[in-house]
């Protein structure tokens, strides 16, 4: 009696594993091994860090090798590969017939279902895969890369922050003094390992925006301060807003426009070195008074003649 197949709307695409490995159907086990290694050397994630395309290619190569290097799977693929739905029915019927017999060749079952295999593979082979060197190869999960935006004040103090990565909440401590563009590694929070391999890591790169009026270079901070003409000429005291609070500063008499002063230890915290800070560099901009009164004008005139 012929089978009646109910085809779903989502028909999975056939994958030509021979084509992926650049082989023909007559390929020997040795040919498959050689072809797999050749392709794997090109696309292996270890050799192509942060390359999503290479990773995808590698998963296909790995899947092709998983099928073609296993005589049982290859036989099934060769027979039913173009029409995997038939294979599913065939396997069901076969399983029914053989349910009293022991299953042979029990394999390592440590692999998680999300092993990077295609729907086609999962449908045809039930997602099972072996493990161990010489059989199915274990692979470390993909490393995830994320970018975290902070402002300069956030980076000034050590604080905790909760991030959501792939639906999971991760609470991390961000040490004071983290640099713009700096990457930190959170071990084991990347993609799930393949075939029982370890999880990948999560790499967080920090993007730190500049603070208005303050620039950071390494651990040092740079800012401009407007100085009244009278303070610049006669000297005085000013109060300055810094990232760590207000600072009182003495201005020397006859301070020139554009002159610089260094406030030691008033810069940015040094990363992971508690109590150590960079310096704060101030450049003075002397403001010339405007809207002078008649009296002020005459005094300036008198000064200019002295």
């Amino acid at each position, binding site marked *: 009696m012929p089978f009646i197949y109910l085809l779903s709307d989502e028909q999975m695409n056939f994958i030509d594993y021979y084509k992926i490995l650049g082989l023909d159907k007559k390929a020997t086990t040795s040919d498959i091994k050689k072809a797999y290694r050749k392709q794997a050397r090109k696309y292996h994630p270890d050799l192509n860090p942060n390359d999503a395309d290479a990773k995808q290619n590698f998963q296909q190569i790995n899947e092709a090798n998983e099928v073609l290097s296993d005589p049982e799977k290859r036989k099934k693929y060769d027979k039913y590969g173009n029409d995997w739905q038939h294979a599913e029915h065939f396997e069901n019927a076969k399983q029914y017939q053989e349910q009293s017999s022991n299953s042979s060749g029990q394999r390592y079952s440590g692999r998680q279902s999300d092993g990077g295999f295609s729907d086609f593979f999962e449908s045809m082979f039930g997602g099972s895969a072996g493990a161990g060197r010489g059989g199915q190869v274990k692979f470390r999960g993909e490393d995830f890369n994320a970018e975290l935006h902070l402002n300069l004040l956030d980076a000034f103090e050590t604080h905790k922050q909760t991030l959501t990565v792939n639906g999971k909440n991760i609470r991390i401590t961000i040490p004071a003094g983290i640099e*713009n563009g700096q990457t930190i590694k959170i071990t084991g929070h990347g993609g799930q390992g393949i075939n029982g391999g370890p999880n990948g890591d999560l790499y967080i790169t920090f993007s730190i925006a500049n603070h208005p009026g303050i*620039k950071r270079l390494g651990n040092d901070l740079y800012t401009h301060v407007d100085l009244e003409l009278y303070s610049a000429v006669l000297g005085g005291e000013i109060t300055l807003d810094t990232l760590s609070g207000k600072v009182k500063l003495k201005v020397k008499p006859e301070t020139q426009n554009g002159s610089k002063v260094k406030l030691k230890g008033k810069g940015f915290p040094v990363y992971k070195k508690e109590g150590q800070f960079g310096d704060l560099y101030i450049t003075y901009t002397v403001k010339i008074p405007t809207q002078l009164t008649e009296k002020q004008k005459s005094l300036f005139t008198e000064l200019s003649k002295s």
Partner: protein
Amino acid sequence: MKVTQIEDLIAVNDFCVNHNIEISFVNLLQQNGLIEIRIIESKGFVEKEQLPQLEKYVRFYYDLDINLEGIETISYLLQRIENQQNELIALKNRLRLYEG
């Protein structure tokens, strides 16, 4: 001075048993300066933080059939890529200072 706790060390023998590889391979990596083995009470140990690197070398050698010379070259090139990426970040930061 860096202080390594004993729990941060992995016995080379355990590593080899776990990965089903020969101990001579790990010794070869050490002889070529690719990893560092510490000897404590005549047993070989590697630091935990070297583990990802060591596992990578194992994959190169056993899964990809890359010989030791190849591993050395690849490691050198990967390190160069990483250094250049770090340099790029530092230069972008300096540029931002003048653009901002």
